[in-house]
């Protein structure tokens, strides 16, 4: 069996690693976006929206 640098096995692994990398990247962006949304919607006391009445 000849050993090639781009064996089918390597292509599958590369595809899997690329997919995982993209998913992790998207997850980081998602958490960052959520943080921005949550922080920007707090009032000056750090309460989430809708909490003013109970304070």
């Amino acid at each position, binding site marked *: 069996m000849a050993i090639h640098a781009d064996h089918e096995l390597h292509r599958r692994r590369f595809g899997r690693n690329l*997919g995982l990398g993209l998913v992790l990247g998207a997850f980081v962006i998602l958490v960052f976006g959520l943080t921005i*949304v949550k922080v920007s919607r707090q009032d000056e006391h750090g309460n989430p929206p809708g909490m003013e009445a109970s304070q």
Partner: protein
Amino acid sequence: MGASDHRGEAMSDLSAYEHTQEAGFGDYVQLLKPRVMSLVVFTAMVGLIVAPVGVHPFVAFTSILFIALGGGASGALNMWYDADIDRVMRRTRGRPIPAGRIGEGEALAFGLALSLISVLMLGLAANWFAGAFLAFTIFFYAVVYTMWLKRSTPQNIVIGGAAGAFPPMIGWAVATGGISVESVLMFLVIFMWTPPHFWALALFMKDDYSNAGVPMLTVTHGRPATRKHIFVYTLLLAPCAVALALSSIGGPVTLAAAIVLNALFILGAVRILRRNEDTAEADGYRAEKSFFKLSLAYLFLHFGALLIEASLAPIGLGGW
């Protein structure tokens, strides 16, 4: 050991690899049952949008994503537990675990990790009630349905349907933080819709369930009894759909859709009830197949009508 021995060892390792079907990224996606996921995404999105409380679009997007991921995680756990059944049935033999591309332990770890991530992230993004509801749904599908009832009762489809009916309630909980009559009605429509949908499929797919040891209604009670069951559930479904149309999230569009769709659905069920296996075989299960297709449109159009009501509301139209 000489250098040639090492080379020989490496070669034999590689030939072993040659026969191993290494999993690609798509195999992990397949483990999440993407087709089931699309229904989860759609119904959860409707539940979230029609709720009377507004949600920030980014929070809404993230929440739907993690509800879908939770649904996918329960699919992976289902595939892990059902690998023995999947190996026996022709339709499922090519799935990643029975085909040997993903190990059983790996699928279990994948399902558990995604369950944990999806529940935690939904809790953090929306609220902990929605997160707990998602956890309960995963538990219900993976443990109550897959591990317990699927192999012990012919009513398995009915009970499994509950897991598929929870997503609009979770979407509603993301917005409101709770449960209400409207969200329960959305649940009931999917819950009552699931048995006729799957039993119609079981009538014409003829999967080898009996070899796999799954007590499907078509096998345990026979096909004529399955036809009766489809008819009864279709009758029970109609009032649930009309009640949803008359609720605060319904309106004239939903009511019109409910009347037309349920009339067609009952008509289709009557047609199935009146047939026997000989007539069905003769025309290639035409009535059963068209009922199944109608069932897909039924759910999509019902929830689509709710979306139309919600989108017409800002301009003073839609709703009661």
